[in-house]
């Protein structure tokens, strides 16, 4: 399953809830303010680092750029994808769960 998260982890429990419920092998895509969840060295980095042991975590490139976040500020292992990558993830998974 593909899980998308569009809220900052500092403002909302969406990312925490998503990572708690997502199964191993899931794809997690951070979009909009959700991309702040990919920041290295933040108060919420640890839960994403833990998730990366069993899931793939992606962040949407255009939303990172809009917020001034360069790729080298992300937690190692978080992969940057474009809108085309978003489409690929949506079609590769049987379901898309949006944590709003």
């Amino acid at each position, binding site marked *: 399953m593909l899980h998308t998260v*569009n809220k900052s982890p*500092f403002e909302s429990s969406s990312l925490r809830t998503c990572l708690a419920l997502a199964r191993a092998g899931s794809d997690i895509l951070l979009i909009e303010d959700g991309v702040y969840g990919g920041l290295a060295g933040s108060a919420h*980095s640890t839960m994403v680092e833990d998730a990366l042991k069993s899931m793939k975590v992606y962040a949407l490139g255009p939303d990172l*750029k*809009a917020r*001034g976040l360069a790729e080298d500020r992300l937690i190692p292992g978080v992969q940057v994808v*474009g809108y085309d990558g978003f489409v690929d993830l949506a079609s590769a998974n049987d379901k898309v769960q949006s944590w709003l």
Partner: protein
Amino acid sequence: MSETKKFMYINRHAPHGTVYAHEGLEVVLIGAAFEQDVCMAFIGDGVFQLKQDQDTSEAGMKNFSPAYRALGDYEVNKLYVERESLQERGLSEADLMPLTWEDEDDDWAEKPSIRVVSRAEMSDLLEEQDVILNF
């Protein structure tokens, strides 16, 4: 002439996911015409508003972050950023836009507008204000 009051605009939201930041900035720029003692506070995700290098071209949104540079020209030159909020987000002062203002009482010397303050200092600043507006 009415007395000057101390106004603080508190910014607690990240810049592009919601409209709070953009609307708040517009209100500050409009309110600057009223010649009050104005400052801005950036707390929590609000610190992301001042992040350098924002480029919304690929996301198809308006990039309003260059407008923060106009604040100095409107004599809005006290931008308090909470240090703890930066640290929790893996950021430092070097990640913020280098915003400045020109001091007419000091031969138009260019001075920094951003002041990184501790949470305790931010608490004191809140107490000093006559009016606080939230975005």
